């Protein structure tokens, strides 16, 4: 008997030791050092000789391509890779999930931003624009192009391509009924002047200090042709190619024939389809790779190197190193993950399921890969938001708009339990404000304000605001008719984070403070249209992209759609005027981009204080690698940073420069 007992104790002790050892390790070896490539701007360090991929030299020898010196601009961009000078060649194998997943390619292979935000997101560097200058009051911005810069078909890239885009596409009301507000201040659009072939100037009617950052943020609609050309934005377009599809330039009969043959609904559809870098192999581009096989009618989606790409490494080797990117279609996420576990992908974080981490680690040696985790530095990977424009049930709408009710709900949710159960304990239970590294970080006290789990305080608060009456099952009663107060927690299926499962747990936790909450899972588009119509009571989502809160609309204001956001964006012309606190937050958000940098940072902090205090969104778990933060990296891949920002604004891994990655032989 005592022997048996001893054995049990021993096994238990061993288990504890193992668990301790494991948790100790997971922090250290999976999250690496934050690092990235450097863009060299020092004149003295520029290479004088250029070389190219053997794939291209063969074409040059065959006479199909001019030599590398003629293909590069007079002053190419020079990049010091994260670790070493790479080797040319190879295929980068990845998985994608279907036609909607072309962002997979746009993120990794579409670095054609006008300006560049380096991997820390703190410094603006030259990219397509070689130089930039702002006047003292930030109303006039002058940009310089690289001399001899060429499109991927060899045609020159000049100021005309920017002017063409601005005048014939961006300002054409038929083509873009609702152009991006990033090119306007106080509702007035910028004017664009061509100074000479290599110089353009944007002028605004009021100061716009954030403009340079906007031009360096590839997610911002007007700064990257590869990322945003497909919806008519992008900041520039290949005029020599697009003109054949534009009614102001093309022959009418020919244009009608093209429309008819391709089944396009109108010329707008035609131009937007032709200007889609991710799908049109014929489209000239400035990005490091171009599409070779589009996803539609091919079993594989293939991108190949752009022979005219304008960046070289520190020794003058034209980038990218990797010749082609091959994405194979995985109809199902389980299949995609199983393939990654089998080592069939060279580098991928998109669609990699954090919850399968143990399986990934177990098979790492066999699959010849390693795992890297990139915790996010926006506030919440899982947050609960309160629909502020919900109105169908006046009693419920009243509670949702009651700040004490929201605070109580927030304190009634145990983020720690969600973290342990769904995010393997890799996150932190915290509010929606960004992490300490962020310039708009409002201070430590706001990280946990009304977020720390405290059932007693939550119960007290609910009792105090008039929800003290309960039924026989311990649920609180409505004030209007004395029936049970029942709330619906609506979640979308098929996201990177398992929201519907988390909703079950959250509903259960809220039962603990006497709130009857029914979780409801909706198909994603139905969920979206409920939000568009203001029909959501409670829902779960994240706030990715709010690292620079002034540059991201959707995840900042999801809870205020549609009436309040319409009001905000129309300057009060349509929609409903929100209550004072929301109005203050919205006014800050709208005026922020026009403030001088120091004042903008103060404004951003104030905005986050308002968010934390008013709890329109209750943070549950943040700082985890749950969204796009679990990377599977084949051991042969070089120059892949040990840790990167997981960030929409820099199109991660875009700002770590995939063109400097290479495959070791």
């Amino acid at each position, binding site marked *: 008997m005592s022997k048996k007992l001893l054995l049990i104790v021993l096994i238990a002790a061993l288990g504890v030791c193992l668990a301790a050892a494991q948790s100790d390790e997971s922090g250290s070896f999976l999250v690496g050092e934050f690092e990235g490539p450097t863009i060299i701007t020092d004149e003295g360090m520029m290479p004088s000789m250029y070389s190219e991929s053997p794939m291209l030299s063969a074409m040059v020898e065959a006479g199909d391509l001019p030599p590398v010196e003629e293909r590069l601009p007079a002053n190419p961009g020079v990049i010091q890779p994260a670790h070493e000078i790479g080797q040319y060649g190879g295929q980068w*194998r990845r998985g994608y999930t*279907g*036609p*909607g*997943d072309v*962002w997979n390619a746009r993120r990794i292979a579409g670095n054609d931003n006008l300006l560049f935000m380096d991997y820390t997101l703190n410094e603006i560097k030259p990219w397509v624009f070689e130089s930039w200058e702002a006047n003292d009051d930030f109303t006039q911005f002058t940009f310089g192009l690289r001399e001899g810069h060429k499109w991927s078909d060899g045609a020159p890239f000049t100021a005309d391509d920017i002017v063409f885009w601005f005048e014939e596409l961006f300002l054409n009301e038929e083509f*873009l*009924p*609702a152009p*991006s*507000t990033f090119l306007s201040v106080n509702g007035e659009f910028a004017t664009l002047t061509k100074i000479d072939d290599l110089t353009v100037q944007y002028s605004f009617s009021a100061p716009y200090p954030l403009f340079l950052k906007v031009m360096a943020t590839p*997610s911002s609609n007007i700064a990257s042709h590869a990322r945003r050309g497909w*919806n*008519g934005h992008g900041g520039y377009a290949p005029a020599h190619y697009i003109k054949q599809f534009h009614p102001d330039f093309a022959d009418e009969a020919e244009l009608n024939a093209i429309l008819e043959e*391709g*089944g396009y*609904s109108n010329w707008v*559809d035609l131009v*937007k*389809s032709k200007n*889609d870098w991710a*799908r049109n192999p014929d489209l000239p581009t400035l990005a490091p790779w171009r599409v070779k096989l*589009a996803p*539609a*009618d091919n*079993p594989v989606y*293939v991108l190949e190197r752009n022979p005219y790409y304008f960046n070289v490494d520190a020794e003058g080797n034209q980038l990218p190193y990797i010749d082609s990117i*091959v994405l194979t*279609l*995985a*109809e*199902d996420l*389980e*299949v995609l993950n*199983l*393939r990654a576990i*089998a080592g*069939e992908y060279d580098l991928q974080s998109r669609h990699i399921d954090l919850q399968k981490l143990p399986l990934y680690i177990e098979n790492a040696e066999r699959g010849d890969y390693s795992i890297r985790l990139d915790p996010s530095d926006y506030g919440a990977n899982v947050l609960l938001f309160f629909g502020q424009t919900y109105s169908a049930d006046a009693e419920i709408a009243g509670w949702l708009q009651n700040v004490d009710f929201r605070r109580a709900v927030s304190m009634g949710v145990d983020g720690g339990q969600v973290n342990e159960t769904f995010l393997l304990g890799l996150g932190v239970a915290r509010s929606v404000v960004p992490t300490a590294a962020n310039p708009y970080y409002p201070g430590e006290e706001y990280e946990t304000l009304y977020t720390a789990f405290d059932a007693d305080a939550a119960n007290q608060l609910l009792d105090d605001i008039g929800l003290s009456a309960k039924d026989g099952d311990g649920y609180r009663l409505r004030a209007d008719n004395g029936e049970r107060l029942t709330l619906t927690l609506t979640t*979308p299926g098929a*996201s*990177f984070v398992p929201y519907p499962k988390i909703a079950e747990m959250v509903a259960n936790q809220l039962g603990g403070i006497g709130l009857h909450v029914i979780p409801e899972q909706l*198909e*994603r*588009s*139905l969920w*979206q*249209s409920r939000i*568009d119509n203001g029909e959501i009571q409670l829902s779960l989502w994240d706030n*990715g*992209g709010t690292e620079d809160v002034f*540059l*991201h*609309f*959707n*995840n900042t204001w999801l809870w205020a759609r*549609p009436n309040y*956001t*319409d009001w905000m*964006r129309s300057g009060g012309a349509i929609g409903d005027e929100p209550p004072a606190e929301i109005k203050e937050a919205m006014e800050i958000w709208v005026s922020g981009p026009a403030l001088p940098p120091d004042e903008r940072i103060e404004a951003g902090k104030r905005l986050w204080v308002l968010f934390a205090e008013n709890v329109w969104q209750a943070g549950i778990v943040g700082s985890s690698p749950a969204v796009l933060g679990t990377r599977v990296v084949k051991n042969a891949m070089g120059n892949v940073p040990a840790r990167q920002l997981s960030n*929409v604004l820099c199109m991660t891994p875009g700002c770590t420069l995939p063109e400097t990655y290479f495959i070791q032989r």
Partner: protein
Amino acid sequence: MLTYIIRRFLLALITIWAISVLSFAIIQLPPGDYVTAYIAQLASSGVDVTPEFAENLRQQYGLDSPITVQYLKWMQQISRGNFGRSLEWRAPVLDIIGDRLWLTMAVSVSAVIFTWGLALPIGIYSAVRQYSIADYIFTFIGFIGLAVPSFLLALILMYVGFRYFGANIGGLFSPEYLQADWSLAKLWDLIKHLPLPALILGAAGTAQLIRIMRANLLDELRKPYVITARAKGMSELRLILKYPVRAAMNPFISTLGYLFPFIISGSIIVALVLGLPTIGPLLLRALVAQDMFLAGTIVLFLGILTVLGTFISDILLMWIDPRIRFERRE
């Protein structure tokens, strides 16, 4: 006979037209449209979507015109052999369906061959040797095959294949042939990949068919004509195959019409799990994304296949079962 066929043919045409209207209407039923679905998808993959976005897209795709106008436009295009452009893939619908149609046929035909090739002999055997040990074993395996969901079987086989045999995960081709043009080597590669999906897709069907065949044949075996034939000294094998089996086949042939659409729609989940580049997953995705021209075209094809299948099974039945043939002649 001829008037019968002509009448059936005209009815088939009307049915197909009705299907096209229904399919177009059903796809429009869920709230929102392609743009809503698309925006939801973008938002959940970390793209900032602003309200302007939706406005620009609706205008681009002509989604603001009424549904009847959209339907008539589509019909007009179809009459010229153009099935429209897929909103989601941004390409002509026929280009997208293209290769997938043939691969779907390959997978389905091999699944049908597997099912019938296994189920019919076993069904006959278990009926003739009712309550023998082999009958019990087949029955047992059959019921297990019927009870195990095929997507689960697919997941398990795939994991076992990867874990112990180092096989590729899913798909119909090895990676090196994915980009290759069609050749004998690629065809051989396809043939090598077919047994697994055929086995998984066929497993449930096989069990079902075994049971039906067994029950039908048992009914027939007890009928007097069998005893008469046996009394006349006909060899047992010839007797069973020529008369009772033929009669027992009747329900198989008459359900042939449903086999075609089942091949596409019944295998969606398995095709998803196995990563098969077939029509099923395409249809599912098109429906979720409310990509109405792609979904509409596939549903229309499914309808045509069903009608065609029923037509063929009618004719086959007349050929295989003299009783039906003579009824018609009168």
